[in-house]
């Protein structure tokens, strides 16, 4: 599952819960699913941020010195 898919599903879950269409059993399942999706997305964001910061610091170290 990609981040985007997970996020999209999370939004759908939240919308469904908000409209109150789901019965309680379903709501509980949905809520659990939503929580899972949130954690998944958060994990992906954190790892992406780590990678980007890593790369940025590598690029910075490769930068040539300013000409005098």
């Amino acid at each position, binding site marked *: 599952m990609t981040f985007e898919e997970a996020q999209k599903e999370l*939004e759908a879950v939240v919308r469904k*819960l908000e409209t109150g269409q789901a019965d309680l059993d379903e*709501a509980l399942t949905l809520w659990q699913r939503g*929580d899972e999706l*949130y954690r998944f997305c958060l994990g992906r964001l954190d790892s992406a941020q780590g990678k*980007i910061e890593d790369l940025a610091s590598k690029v910075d170290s490769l930068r040539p010195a300013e000409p005098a």
Partner: protein
Amino acid sequence: MKVEAIEYGDRKVFSVGAFNRGVADWLSRLPTLWVEGEVTELRRQERWATVFLTLKDPSDGACLSVSMPRAQFDALRLELADGEHVHVYGRPELFAARGDFRFRALSIERFGLGDHLAALERLKQKLAHEGVFDRKRPLPRFPRRVGLVTGNDAAAKRDVLTAITTRFPPARVVVAETYVQGPRAAGAIVDAIGALCEIPDVDVIIVARGGGSFEDLLPFSDERLVRAVAGCRVPIVSAVGHEQDTPLSDLAADARASTPSVAARLVVPDADELCERLEQTRQRLHHAPLLMLERKRAALESAHGRLRALSPRATLDRGYAIVRREGAIVRSGGDVGTGARVDVELAEGGFGATVEETR
């Protein structure tokens, strides 16, 4: 006319008079024609029957002696002075008595700036009508090589080269030195442009010449050159003369530069500006993904906030309880009978219970 030779054995020898007469006769067969030049050493005296002057080619200094009967010359009422530009109609002749070669004038016309301008204007109209001035191509942003057509006098060449390398130090320039003045200039410049076009990675050509007199810049209005500029394989920047000069090749060129630094600005990018832009792009590259992450994180947190508000746990926290019978949620008193076992879930923990009464 028969020129008699004296024979000494097997050697034929001509007298001076006979030789001169022979050459004069030969010359007299040449056609009558117009010659253009500048008047110098004009000699006219009341007691002379003939007026003499020397016609000089301003571009290379070549001279021609001209003579004209004084009565005819006076009748023209030209009031000529040294330095004036004229067209002389006449034919070559040899003054046999002295062996002097002369151009015998039948008529003289002053050919001034006005006539030059009128001739140029006619050419301009003709070329404009053909659409020679209409093709304007964009100049390359990063030319692999820049061709430079210039005179071998250092000034114009150095100015353009300096301007280019100052603006864009890694620029590669091929210089084609040529005549930029005089009767051979137009043809030579056409050849130089052609030679630069043969070099495959020349992507733009500058034709440069410093300022000069109207006559100095005339080759740049030569029809051959104007057509060559218009038909060139690569775009041409004309950097000829000063702001106020507009030779026709300027109009045919793809761009016009009034100074060497303008020419440089047209053909090469500014290295400093490129570096600055690269640095800006680098910074944006650095920040863009983080910004994107932030936006995504905000959207995620907002969804999560809403999710949390909807959590069943939140409902239980407010004092509600969930009653289940054999795992299924009980919604109505009728769903259970008296004595049924139910499970009750609370915000914290829960308990089992037995139904005593239904309503």
